């Protein structure tokens, strides 16, 4: 698991100014006009070899003793980070909070996929929420994100905006998405939403008018039955608003992904949910069936949520078969190949973000590890009893067949 931020870090000569967003550069020859907007990134070993270039707004040193840093950076505003931040690289975008001596990594250029939180407020209160909502004024986030978007590499593959519930931001979400259209038109933009706000046709119109060329909204539908969905999201009437939201989006030709988290409250009716989707929402663009992440609210509710994925393979296989029979685009996220019915392997994706993606000691000898999505870091708390490495012997017949062919 990567450390994506912290507070009470070693700050030197950083003015006590309001939080700001800045892009890292490891290029000592960066053209001067760009330096006041950039932070120079260097590692301890490099520092002694050449003198630091001047003119950067900030200097970020990774590794090394704190004592020597002052000497090297002299009176320049600088931050010294531990080697836990070794992953940082050119083009990454940080949020700096001087008064807390804190920083947060907003964008990593080397990652295939970046997530950016837009708000911690939400009108659902899902039993298994991985990012429990807070009722605080966090409207400052939007301005930071609007500052960050122009700094993000326009070749970025995919950015996901999460929450909380991003649509609660209303016009501010539209502003963020419009900025993406302007600065990141080639980046796949994914919004994770509960979809309820789109039941308002005026909001659906505003969203549709953004017209980013590669925009999709991921919306959870947890059951074919309103009472179960509303229970899972802890909000009466949510099911109806969510479904109306999806209809409003599709009638406006917006791309929609349906996301289903599988747990003890949702697994039994997976086949019926699949039937509901093919009969009513066949036009959605993707269905993601997702394993449980043991974080956030899932921890206190674990007894009501945990089911060994091995024990719901029948329901999962039936649901995937139905969705695939109707030519729906279906994926399985967050599952390990060794607990999945082998008929489901073609649908399994390596979906866990790299910064929280891990494998167990058992996985070391597994011959399918490179094809397997592995675990959330949080899976240490609970994982299937049926994790077992695939052995090389199981692979042998294939190898022999290949060898035998003329």
């Amino acid at each position: 698991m990567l450390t994506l931020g912290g507070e009470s870090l070693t700050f030197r000569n950083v003015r006590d100014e309001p939080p700001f967003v800045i892009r890292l550069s490891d290029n000592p020859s960066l053209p001067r006009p760009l330096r006041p907007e950039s932070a120079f990134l260097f590692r301890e070993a490099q520092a002694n070899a050449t003198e630091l270039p001047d003119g950067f707004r900030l200097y970020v040193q990774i590794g090394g003793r704190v004592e020597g840093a002052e000497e090297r950076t002299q009176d320049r505003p600088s931050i010294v980070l531990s080697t836990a931040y070794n992953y940082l690289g050119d083009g990454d975008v940080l949020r700096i909070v001087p008064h807390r001596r804190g920083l947060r990594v907003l964008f990593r250029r080397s990652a295939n996929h970046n997530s950016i939180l837009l708000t911690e407020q939400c009108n659902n209160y899902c039993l298994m929420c991985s990012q429990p909502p807070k009722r605080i004024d966090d409207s400052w986030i939007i301005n930071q994100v609007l500052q960050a978007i122009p700094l993000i590499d326009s070749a970025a593959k995919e950015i996901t905006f999460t929450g909380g519930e991003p649509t609660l931001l209303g016009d501010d979400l539209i502003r963020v998405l419009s900025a993406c259209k302007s600065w990141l038109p080639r980046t796949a933009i994914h919004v994770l939403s509960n979809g309820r706000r789109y039941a308002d046709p005026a909001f659906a119109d505003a969203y549709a008018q953004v017209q980013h060329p590669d925009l999709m909204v991921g919306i959870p539908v947890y059951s074919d039955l309103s009472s179960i969905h509303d229970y899972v999201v802890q909000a009466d009437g949510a099911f109806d608003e969510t479904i109306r939201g999806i209809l409003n989006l599709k009638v406006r030709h917006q791309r929609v992904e349906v996301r289903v988290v599988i747990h003890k409250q949702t697994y039994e009716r997976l086949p019926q949910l699949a039937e509901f989707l093919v009969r009513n929402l066949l036009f959605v663009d993707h269905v993601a069936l997702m394993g449980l992440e043991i974080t956030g609210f899932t921890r206190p509710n674990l007894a009501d949520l945990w089911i060994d994925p091995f024990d719901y393979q029948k329901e999962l296989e039936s649901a995937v078969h139905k969705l695939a029979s109707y030519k729906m685009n279906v994926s399985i996220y967050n599952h390990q190949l060794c607990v999945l019915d082998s008929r489901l392997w073609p649908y399994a994706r390596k979906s866990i973000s790299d910064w929280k993606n891990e494998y167990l000691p058992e996985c070391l000898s597994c011959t399918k590890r490179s094809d397997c999505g592995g675990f959330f870091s949080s899976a240490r708390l609970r994982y299937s009893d049926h994790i077992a490495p695939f052995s090389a012997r199981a692979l042998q017949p294939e190898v022999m067949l290949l060898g035998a062919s003329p």
Partner: protein
Amino acid sequence: MATKFERREHFEASLGNGYRLLPFSFSPLNDRDYILTNQAGQYTLLDRPTLEDLVRHRLEPRSDAYATLKSQHFLLDSDSNVAVDLLALKVRTKNSQFTNFTGLHIFVPTLRCEHSCPYCQVSRQSDDKTAFDMSFETANRSLGMVFRSPSPAIKIEFQGGEPMLNFELIRHIVVCAERINQIEHRNLQFVIATNLALVNDDVLSYCKAHDILISTSLDGPKDLHNRNRPRPGGDSYERTVAGIAKARDILGRDRVSALMTTTEASLGRVVEIIDEYVRLNFDRIFLRPLSPYGFAIKTKSYQAYDADDWLDFYFCGLKYILQLNRDGLYFVEHYASIILSRMLTPFESGFVDLRNPAGIGIGALVYNYDGEVYASDEGRMLAEMHDKTFRLGNVHENTWEEIMTSSALLDPLEQSFAGSVPMCFECAYQPYCGAEPVFHYATQGDFVGHKPSSAFCHRNMAITRHLIELLRTDEDANRILMSWLRI
């Protein structure tokens, strides 16, 4: 459960307030169970006591049946009303083909044919080109009608006779239609229904250049095919098989399809017929009933076997096809595929024989060689027997408006509408069936017909019931049938 979360019972509290029934029909499936279908053609099965509980509002909200009926939009409770939006959307989707209006336009370039099939309804053996060929002028006026239909998809199908005997006219129609379509921008498609006996490289190259599909006739193994389809030299089968190979070479495998006609001689031989299609590398077959029109009635070949004989033939064939699939060959029975798609998907099939309102005129129109316009191919066949009930007008005498609002079209459409036909209006199988005024007129003398003695009704109910039983009792068959859905 952490205390700040509400328990499941909290969200189910409103389920105790009772429920309303959404519109549905129900009919017996077998001795025990009933089939219920809603307005969007979704079905569910219930035993009689549960059905009674449902309609008497005694159904327990926490029962499986309640969950199923709510999920599939048979009932509505106060917890949720988005079902009404979804049901409306599905009903609109099922009926969207009617807003498109006439999509299939059948042209008869000639009635002449070098085959003399006893079951053929219309063909003529004649060398007199003027008597039975369509003129360029008639073709032009007909094309003017074709593009009056607002349908975004226009399929022009050449029937006969043997249309290749008047290929010059086909070329003319294709070129003119393409020219008109440069302005109209419809999804325009051409099909030639041909016995392939006279096909050559030039004709096929022309088909390739204009993206024309070929639909041919293949009745089964050599002896059966040649017995059904006599021609000078007795070599229909050999010519068809050679023609299929040649057409595939030039056009591609998926541009060539085959249709079989069932005769009395076919009845015991369904496995051999299917094997013939498999051997020729087709991935589907349409096990068709013999139609009761034209020379087929005159020669008594229609009465020669009744609906149950044909059903035995059909079920035996379907069983064999399922076995082929179990053995690893993807092979589809087309009629089942159409009915299954109507049962299991939000879409309609587009198949003109199974529509309600009927597909006559508003689904398909026939422009005969002599300029006469008929409501369907079957209507044209009746006319060849001197019954012009389904003649809607003539391209030289009537306008599009006159033809499409003629009593000859509106009366059968209205009278046969299943929503108001005795027995059909309350039949749970109706969403998978159709209004067939031409069939019932031909066999029973009126557009509505007497359903208990209707072979059409008997056949469709039997097939639908059979498919439902297969879907629920045979997991293997279920998976195979699901792979046949047209989505």
